[in-house]
C-alpha cells in the first residue's frame, strides 16, 4: 500500500482532482440553435398573384387573378402548379423550373388521359398561359413528359414551345 503513496502519485491525484473540479464548475456549452432571424421575418408571407387562364370553351379562356400566400420555405412555382390544378380540376404537373428565359413544365404521362383533342388543347394551353402570365421570367413554356422531351401526350405536338398570343 505504501508503494502507492509516493509523492508523485499524490501529486498526480491532486492534479486529477483539480481537473475534475474545474470540469464540474465550467458552464455547460450552449446547444446548437437556429440562426436568429429578425422578428418580422418569421411571420412574413409573400403574396403571389396567379393569373389564371380558366378554360371557357368554345370562346377561349377567362383570365382570373388569384392571390396565393407563399409562406417561408414554400416554392412559388409549386404553389402555382397546385393552385392551377385545383382551379381547373386537372392533375398536378410534376414540376416547374425556369431556364434561359423559358419555363419548363414536367407532366405526368397520364396528364391528358381521357380527353379529346379540344379538351387537351384547353388543358395544356390553360397551364402554359397561366404560367407565362404569372412568371415574367419565362417568355415561352416547354413541356416534358416524365422528365423527358416528348413529341406529345396524345393529340398535341409538345415539341413546339407555347407562347402567349
Amino acid at each position: 500500500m505504501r508503494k502507492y503513496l509516493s509523492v508523485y502519485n499524490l501529486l498526480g491525484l491532486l492534479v486529477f482532482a483539480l481537473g475534475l473540479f474545474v470540469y464540474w464548475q465550467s458552464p455547460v456549452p450552449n446547444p446548437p440553435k437556429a440562426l436568429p432571424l429578425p422578428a418580422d421575418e418569421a411571420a412574413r408571407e409573400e403574396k403571389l398573384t396567379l393569373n389564371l387562364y380558366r378554360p371557357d370553351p368554345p370562346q377561349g379562356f377567362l383570365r382570373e387573378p388569384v392571390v396565393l400566400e407563399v409562406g417561408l420555405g414554400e416554392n412559388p412555382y409549386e404553389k402555382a402548379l397546385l393552385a392551377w390544378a385545383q382551379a381547373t380540376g386537372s392533375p398536378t404537373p410534376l414540376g416547374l423550373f425556369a431556364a434561359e428565359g423559358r419555363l419548363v413544365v414536367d407532366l405526368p404521362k397520364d396528364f391528358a388521359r381521357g380527353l379529346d383533342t379540344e379538351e387537351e388543347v384547353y388543358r395544356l394551353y390553360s397551364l402554359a398561359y397561366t404560367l407565362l402570365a404569372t412568371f415574367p421570367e419565362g417568355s415561352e413554356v416547354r413541356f416534358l413528359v416524365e422528365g423527358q422531351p416528348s413529341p406529345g401526350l396524345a393529340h398535341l405536338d409538345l415539341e413546339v414551345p407555347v407562347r402567349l398570343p
Partner: protein
Amino acid sequence: MRALLLLFLAPFALAQAPKPLKVGELTGEALYPGNRGVSYGEVGLVARGLGLALWQGESQVALGLGARYRTFPVEADEAKAASSLAAWRKDGRVYVPLRPLADALGLSYRAQVGIQLDLPWARLLQVEARPEGYLLRFSREVNAVVRPGGVLFPMAQGSHPSLVQEAMGLFLPLSRPPERVYYPGGGQVAVGLTPLPLPSPTVLLDPGHGGEDPGLEVQGLVEKEATLDLARRVAALLPGARLTRQGDETLPLEARLALARTASVVVSLHMARGREVRLYLPKDRTSPLAQSLARLGDLPEERARLLRAYAGDPARLAAALERAFADQGFAVAKAEGPYALTRVDGAAVLLEVGAERLGTEEARALVAQAIAQGIRAYLEGGAP
C-alpha cells in the same frame, strides 16, 4: 569561289521554276506556287489528258475516276494553297496539286526533268449483259462518257462482242441513251437501260391510343377500340395502307412519329364526344421538302412523282377528306395548330370523329368509306 556558290544555289532556284508537265499525251507546265516544292498542273489539262471527270465550282474543284474522286478547295493565295494542298487560282485558271491527286485516283506520278502524270490503260475483265443494262468490270477504275450512239470508256481496252475498240478507248454501242451510268466501285461501271421504278405514295393510318391508354370512353364505346376498328375498315378499302398498331397495344407517340415520317399520307384517327367530325392540321410547315411542294407544278413529271412520294400537302388532304365527308352528309370542322404527328413531310392530319358517329357497324362503315374516299381523291390529285 563565287562560281561555286552560284553552282550550289542553282538547283534550289531551278527546283521552284516551272517544269514541263506531261499528262497522258498532252503537255503543259508544272508550277510551284509559293516555292513550297509542290507541283501543280492546270486542272483542265489534267482532266483532258487522262480522261478524268471534272467538276469545277467557284470555291471547289473535283476530279474523278470511276468511283474515286478528289475534291480541292480553291485558294487565290499561292503560299496558302501550297501549304494546305488546295487548288490554286491564277489568272482565271485553276491548278491542282499533282501528287495528292495521283495518290487519290491511283495515277502514276514521276518527277525527273519534268513531271509525268500517267494512267495505265485499263483492261476489260468481265461484261455482264442483262435486259436492264450492262455491268462491266475493268482492271482499274474507269470513267464512262455518254456519247451519241453509246458509252465510251476512255483509256480502256479489251474485246467483247458487245464492245468496239476505238483509239480513245472501248465503246459500247447502244440503240438508245442509257437511263443512268454509275460506278459501284472495284473497277465496275454499271450502265442502266431501264428506268428505276419510282416509289409510290404510302398511306399510314394511326388508330389513336391503345393498350394502357384507352382514350375516351363514351357510353360504353372505348376510343382505342373504335379507332382500331375504323383504321382496319379504311385499310380494307385502301390496298397497301399500313397501320401503326395492329392490336390493343401501348404504342408511344415517338414510335408513331417514326412511322409517320416514312409515309406520304398520315391520318391519325381519334374519337370525340358528340357527333362532330373534326380535322386538325399543321399550321406552318418549314421543312425544305414541304416547302418544295410549292414548285410541284414546275417540275418534270418524274421528279414531281418522286416528290409526291415523300412530301404531301395536308391542306389538300384535309380538303379531300372534307369533300368526301360532305358526300356522306357530314359537316367537318377544321383547325390548324401544332397537332401530334402532323409535323412531318407527308400530308398528315388528325381526324376526330364524334362517338355518336361510331355507335353502329353501319355508321362506322360509312365513316371508313368517307376516309378512304378522301385519301384516294387526294392521291389521285382530284381535290382542290
